[in-house]
């Protein structure tokens, strides 16, 4: 008889600890990693390396906020990587093939990229395909569209088109600035803040979460559920497109599947973001924190000469842990 209450209090203590860790584990891990890498490698803690880390996560973060918005309606946008690739191809073609200026090239690229959202929301909302599977399909479709459009995937300044036509357009220097720090970091921070304000302080953000929380209750409360699910996919595509613009500015050319590599870390960042500070919902700030954690890990490990081909093991593990923290408590 005496053993039972004791074990129940120790169980309670355990659940308090788990609770604390799931809230603050990400932040604690970031500080532990910072301390560890700083002690292990003096070069790590230099201000310039900190800036490097922030610069390296900016594209991931912006794409991850796109995933975050799709997660708010209990959806999942896997096509963000392809959207980024597609946008890179579009914007580069406008510069190199057609010699457009920065502003029209960016605007038109984003508008065309939104066709992905159109297809996604049609498949998901109208045809009732599971979000994950529908966007898996569009991920492949638009990867192929980008390849086909560019004729193999790459466009760079001075490179002739596939049919041999010489190109004369140049990438404007103003556009290249977008890809350099501090601008790229500032753009990221502004986007994170905008998404945060939108999700937290507007009616529409509230509705997105409600639709994700209980679609039927939302519908019966008079919320136009399908309109908001569509909105979520348009926003996730737009944000992924912005990530593509930043990527294009950063590398200054279109490369085969340039955006694909950003999908996995972006998914990880968005899921790590769930639990940060106990929000337990997809949220923009959490996503930024998640991206910082992933970026920090990547940077530190590279500096410790872990081969790049082994990094995915670590990144995959981080994603698994983030998912475990998100889903573990739900099954009680």
């Amino acid at each position, binding site marked *: 008889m005496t053993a039972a209450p004791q074990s129940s209090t120790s169980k309670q203590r355990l659940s308090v600890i788990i609770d604390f860790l799931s809230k603050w584990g990400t932040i604690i891990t970031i500080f532990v990693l910072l301390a560890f890498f700083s002690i292990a490698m003096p070069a790590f803690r230099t201000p310039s390396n900190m800036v490097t880390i922030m610069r390296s996560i900016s594209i991931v973060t912006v794409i991850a906020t796109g995933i975050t918005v799709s997660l708010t309606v209990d959806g999942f946008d896997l096509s963000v990587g392809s959207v980024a690739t597609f946008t890179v191809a579009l914007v580069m073609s406008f510069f190199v093939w057609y010699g457009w200026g920065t502003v029209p090239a960016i605007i038109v690229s984003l508008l065309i990229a939104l066709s992905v959202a159109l297809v996604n929301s049609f498949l998901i909302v109208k045809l009732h395909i599971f979000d994950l599977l529908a966007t898996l399909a569009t991920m492949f479709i638009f990867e192929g569209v980008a390849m086909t459009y560019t004729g193999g995937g790459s466009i760079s300044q001075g490179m002739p088109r596939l049919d041999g036509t010489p190109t004369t357009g140049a990438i404007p220097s103003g556009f290249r600035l977008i890809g350099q720090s501090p601008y790229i970091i500032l753009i990221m921070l502004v986007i994170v803040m905008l998404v945060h304000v939108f999700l937290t*302080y*507007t*009616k*529409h953000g*509230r*509705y997105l*979460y*409600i639709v994700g*929380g*209980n679609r*039927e*209750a*939302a*519908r*019966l*409360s*008079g*919320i*136009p559920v399908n309109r908001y699910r569509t909105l979520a996919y348009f926003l996730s595509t737009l944000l992924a497109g912005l990530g593509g613009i930043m990527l294009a500015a950063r590398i200054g050319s279109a490369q085969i599947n340039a955006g694909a590599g950003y999908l996995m870390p972006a998914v990880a960042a968005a899921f790590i973001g769930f639990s940060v500070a106990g929000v337990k919902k997809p949220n923009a700030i959490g996503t930024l924190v998640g991206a910082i954690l992933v970026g920090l890990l990547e940077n530190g490990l590279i500096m410790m000469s872990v081969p790049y081909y082994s990094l995915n093991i670590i990144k995959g593990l981080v994603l698994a842990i983030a998912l475990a923290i998100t889903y573990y408590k739900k099954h009680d």
Partner: protein
Amino acid sequence: MESKHRLEMKGISIEFPGVKALDNVDFTVKSGEIHALVGANGAGKSTLMKILGGAYDHYTGAIYFDGEKANIRHPRDAKELGIDVVYQEVDTALIPYLTVAENIMLDKMANEMKRKHFIRWGNIHRSAREVMKRVGIELDTHTLVQDLSLAEKQVVLIARALATNTNFLVLDEPTAPLSQTETEELFRLMRDLAQNQNVGVVFISHRLPEIFEVCETITILRDGQVVFDATIEQITQQKLVELMLGRRFEETYPKIHVPIGDVILEVKGLNEESGRVRDVNFTVRAGEIVGMTGLVGAGKTELCKTLFGAYPVKSGEALLHGKPLTMKSPHSAVKQGLALVPEERRKEGILVDEPVYVNLTLPSLDKFTKGPDFVNTRAEKSIARQVIKELGIVTPSEEQKVAYLSGGNQQKVAVGKWLIADAEIYIFDEPTKGVDVGAKRDIFELIGQLAKQGKGVIYASSEIPEILDISDRVYVMYDYTIVKEFETSEATEESILFYSAGGQ
């Protein structure tokens, strides 16, 4: 001819947290008879049959099979004695993407394969066809179950039961979703099983004409006890209804009488896309509480949802203040001044993971915005505090998650959100389900207040005493349509139940 079997349940009692579901129940069924098991909602019919099917193991009392004690504590025990129960939700028992043959032979495949690992498809289909021949149905055994109609699925389940040796077959409200001809077909099958194949059939139904048509013996349960047990000739429809109800000791609620105004809602010839609402006509006047009653499955929820735009309309119209009501989505319903408090509270009415204030302002968030759609949380919280006070919602604050509230208080939140929205027509679907007496009183009072303000109220419930307490007029539904209209002052519990059960 096989020998006659006799299955006896003696002194069966079972308790669930807070309720004694069955109290010393005796029930006997014999081979070759069709035995009706009747009772009001919650009388314990399904519970009794679940015990027979081995779904519970914590009951007291004993079960005898041919005079020998049978210890049924697990579905396997029941199966071994040849007792099969076809539960109400046929879809949960079938595997949709397997064929008819595989579904019929499922028990055999699961239990009698032993150490064989390869399936002989020819055998499966041949055996399935043999079983189907026994029950006299024709279906291609290669059809996938997901492509079958509800009636066909039910037959497949019966065939599955018969694939193994069956002595007793329990059918729990099998006719509720069936059409007239499908029901006739089922009865033919039941008679065939009883007369020619020596099966004892237990038939649970709320529909009186059916019971009198097909059954030979009848047991009536009320509040977990047997109140009648004899052959069908010894009872009339009227008497049966009286026995089902018995005398009640429930509290009554004083109705607030308010002057009733003009017709504000008029529904004409309403049909739902898949026939879940058929040719429904009714009116609601200002200040009037209209009761919409009928048994579970009579189509009340479907009517509420169709009117609210949540189910597709096939034909018919509704006029709100003389203007046609657009019934295309809940979104447009809310815009036009309708409010629905749905039956499935946790699934449809509230968001358990959101705080009270978010739930309360949800349908009317437009009233709490400033600038370009920014939410004015302060205004939200202040109105939420007001509603919490008015409705007496027990919560530490407006920021508490609704998940932590009691059922009654959750329901008040589900109702409260429509008070802020200020609708014209309030539709309540079983608003007192799972709600304690105190909260029930509060909800009744609130509905009375709405009527006093000149709103139109539709109150759908299968709890007839409640309908009698609160409504001005009652519509009785049966089989997805309205079969009777009463002035509440002229209605009695017996008369309502009579029409609810399809009496004519």
